[in-house]
């Protein structure tokens, strides 16, 4: 269970960006690979809890889960795997240890609130 420390890192990263740009963050968009070692549900719970008492309080965490993709030498292309327990090309069955997607743990975007000052 290391999702809380991951959540704290996400918050820290979002805070840095929001302070640098002088904006309020309402949501954090995250890419989460199936081999990242992080469980989505546990991360969502940790994130909500860790946001309390920070400038991100109430912000949402929007998680895009990325399946594993391998490079299949037989197909000569990136392919999904049969299952997380079987790293074989889903189309032709060739085994491959060359993971090209699935280890991501990356903040890709922030949703920010921009106050329209002209209408104040």
């Amino acid at each position, binding site marked *: 269970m290391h999702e809380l420390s991951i959540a704290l890192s996400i918050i820290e*990263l979002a805070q840095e960006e929001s302070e640098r740009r002088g904006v309020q963050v309402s949501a954090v968009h995250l890419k989460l690979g199936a081999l990242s070692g992080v469980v989505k549900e546990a991360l969502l719970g940790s994130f909500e809890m860790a946001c309390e008492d920070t400038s991100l309080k109430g912000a949402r965490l929007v998680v895009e889960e990325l399946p594993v993709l391998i490079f299949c030498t037989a197909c000569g292309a990136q392919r999904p795997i049969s299952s997380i327990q079987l790293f074989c090309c889903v189309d032709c069955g060739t085994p491959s240890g060359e993971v090209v997607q699935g280890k991501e743990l990356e903040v890709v975007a*922030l949703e*920010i609130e921009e106050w329209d000052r002209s209408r104040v």
Partner: protein
Amino acid sequence: MGSQPRLIEVRKNVLKQNDLNARMLRQQFRAAEVFVVSLVSSPGSGKTMLLEKTLMLLCQNYRVAALVGDLATENDAVRLTRSQAPVKQITTGTLCHLEAAMVQNALEEWDLNQLDFLFIENVGNLVCPSSYDLGENLRLVLLSVTEGEDKPLKYPTIFNSADVAVVTKMDLASAVEFDWQAAYANVQAVRPGMQVLRLSARSGEGMDDYLDFLQKRLKESRVASNLSTASATP
């Protein structure tokens, strides 16, 4: 006063700080020509026992040292000091894994130039350590025969973060009806092409092959680093 949500692109690795620290460690290790091996496994799969024997056997011909991660006790470090090799404990408290910064702190007083091998024993856990790069040259994932052959299928992530799998406690294999072929096939299912060693630190079975493998990898890394140094020099 109105507000409108807007998306701004960021694209930042959440573990960027750990990755930066790991990169610094890797540079340090390369400059000192020390070969760094980390061990991950579930609790009780024999990391400390294997490390104890490894230190004892390697210290006859090499300069070896170890860092050991443990949640609360210093028992592992005490066990390992019997080998006479320098050993330092990293007590993680409640943290379930080692991070690169902890390794950096632990190494502060050590002169890496005085070492050939450095071993890092991670906290016993098959989940969390997989996310954290420690700058090591080689990550071994241990699987003891008493845990069952299907461990790789249950923890594909850690097998994908490691370089080589080591089946331990082979002296107990027949007592627990361990099926080596099935275990090997399961490793290959989640990590095609992964090298799998098998041994018993207690009986000594397979230890020669394992030590030969480590020494070969040390030599290879030195050759590679000399080549890259030579090609970088005009």
